[in-house]
């Protein structure tokens, strides 16, 4: 059976700690997502996401603080504006925009984090492997 490879870019202060909170609560979720820690979701440039798809990732997850909660006050405002544009660009280049998900997870939301991971993994699993769609 096909196991999707997913990369998650998580901000250090809210979402990465939310992922830690899921661990502390021993909430189980699929192992497909490998997390890369960035200081702020605002650091995630569109090129980084595109590069990740180029390496064959089946899905990319971008998680940041809720709007208003950003450790850097407004870094995630950029993410909120940037990612929908990137989704349009993905569509234009022939990549299913559903393969990119942006969500907000706070440091307290371990449960939400585990649900986001479960849902996204299932969604990606239902799609064909990314490399096959690019042939």
């Amino acid at each position: 059976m096909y196991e999707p490879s997913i990369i998650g870019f998580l901000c250090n202060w809210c979402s990465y700690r939310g992922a830690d909170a899921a661990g502390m609560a021993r909430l189980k979720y699929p192992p497909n997502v490998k997390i890369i820690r960035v200081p702020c979701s605002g650091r995630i440039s569109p090129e980084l996401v595109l590069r990740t798809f180029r390496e064959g990732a089946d899905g990319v997850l971008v998680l940041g603080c809720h709007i208003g909660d950003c450790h850097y006050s407004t870094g995630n405002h950029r993410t909120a504006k940037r990612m929908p544009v990137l989704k349009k660009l993905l569509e234009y280049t022939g990549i299913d925009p559903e393969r990119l998900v942006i969500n907000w997870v706070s440091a307290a939301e371990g449960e939400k984090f585990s649900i986001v991971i479960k849902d996204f993994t299932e969604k990606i699993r239902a799609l064909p492997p990314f490399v096959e769609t690019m042939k």
Partner: protein
Amino acid sequence: MTEKVGVYVCHCGSNIAGTVDVADVSKWAAEELQHLGVVVARDYKFMCSSLGQELIEKDINELGLTRVVVASCSPHLHEPTFRNACARAGLNPYLFEMANIREQDSWVTTDKVEATKKAKALIAAAVGRVVHQQPLNSLFVPIDPNVLVVGGGITGIQAALEIANSGQKVYLVEREPSIGGHMAQFDKTFPTLDCSACILTPKMFDVGNHKNITLLTWSEVEKVEGYIGNFTVTIRIRARFIDQGLCTGCGVCWEKCPKKVVDDVFEAGMGKRKAVYTPFPQAVPKYPVIDHDNCTYFLKGTCKACQKFCPTGAINFEQQDEIITVKVGNIILATGFDLFDAHRMPQYGYDRLPNVLTSLEFERLSNAAGPTGGKLVLKDGVTAPKSVAIVHCVGSRDKNYNAYCSSICCMQSLKFAHLVHEKTGAEVYNCYIDIRTPAKGYEEFYQRLLEEGTHFIRGKVAEVTNSARIPEEEGKLIVQVEDTLIGKQRRIPVDMVILSAALESRHDAKQVAQKFGISCSADEWFIERHPKLDPVATMTDGVFVAGACQGPKDIPACVAQGAAAAARVLSIIGQGEIEIEAATAIVDETTCVGCTQCVSSCPYQAIEFLTDMGKAHVIEALCKGCGTCVGTCLPKSISLKHFTDEQLVSEMIGAMQVMKSFQLMEVA
């Protein structure tokens, strides 16, 4: 130059080793990651122990490692530990990287094979990244020794006094006209039954007269800018309409004021105050406040009775709010709690049936300085109750409202039972879910209550009603409860019901958290840096939390946290300067096109545009290292140290290659 990487896989007892095959992972890393520069990989029971750290130091010295990867817990827990170990062995701490195989692997993955594979992918990612990491030198900035304490309850008072007594300057900001907080409203404190005011007011007096404390009551923090060591705080001092330089606190104004208002704050709606008032006689500061919304002069344009009679001419109806800015190096938040609104549980009849009181209302009723002078009477103002029911866990330990235990209500309810018994001799029924008396002297107090003859009924009260079924219930409040110890429904007719309401986070806790750049839990309590080992610090350096704003707490715990936060702040001040983020942004001037996108994206105004050169430039001391500019820069001229594209892409490729190789193995 090829780097020499050492990989260390931690067992964390069985926390990791129970799910991840650590020996296999370490063997795999040594063999399969050689091409990336791994020269040694070891697994060890506890990498964070001194022996574990020595293992790393020894390898750096003997094998000449140039990079170190530890696969263990979250970097939020032990990154500083291992960075220090590297530094001790002479390796720049930024040449270290961590793979989180506990919180994000062994604790969340059920399948052992999958967990082991995930650990390998995470380690490959970390190794991929670490070889591209560059040594960085930390910046040091001086610490402003002044401290801001927000909230003048017992926690804030304790914190402010500790700091001020050490010789540092404190700004204590309080929203209400006086400091004292909830503790000033209480009658007695459990389990010793000290008079609350008697132990609190001397501390309040000390705050009011301390040469190192600037007390700003009737004030609120509007804006916080800056970072640890260098905060600039904007504070609004609301107009009191009293000239503090002239007022002596003599009290003539509130004696002469003709307007009476129900005091919803200090008296919890049980008593009245005037439109010009101090909340209570021992208020600190002693200056009154004119209640703008209720003052006859402000409503109708005439009256000015207070002004006519004030012997010093201190009344000033023209006074405006004042905005001040102060510079501080550290901030302690001690903003306390709100009481659960008992209206939300209509089945208990609060505000609908007479003589159903909340805990705070009972405190005022019982208080010798309260509206009845401490006489426990029913709504008619004369009759003493012959029977009283105390309902525990109103709004706590209840999924419909707050799932958590409010921690103080059991002891508070026992205290109420004792006071009712002592003052009126009434029969007291405590309806509880569980009795929780875990602190020093608390269980003994419970035993004392049992001996005093209080009735304890184990069951959650279903309803408080006045509809009588039998003649004995006529004119009474009937408490409907299942006594789970005997398995029977009971209807207890009583004269008074006290609802031990839950402690909740402040209604505006979320906004306050945003203002100070810290996080809230789902219940909107402020989140501490670590629940056990760092209970008063937050993820934002220089901002500390203490007392009930972090979670329900009794007075001893609040005092301890106030003092703890003060100690943390003093230890920072004592260092004189503090290390700040070395991972700042940097502009490559050869490729910068001067589009200024980065300038407008920066949340800290840390990027300036050099007009003469037509290039952007990062002011390092202001840069907090978020990298938002990097995500914005089109020609890729800005990079963020320690989070460069090369580092992140290599980390991603490291993980992707391992995941893909496992897939291919499975297909084959």
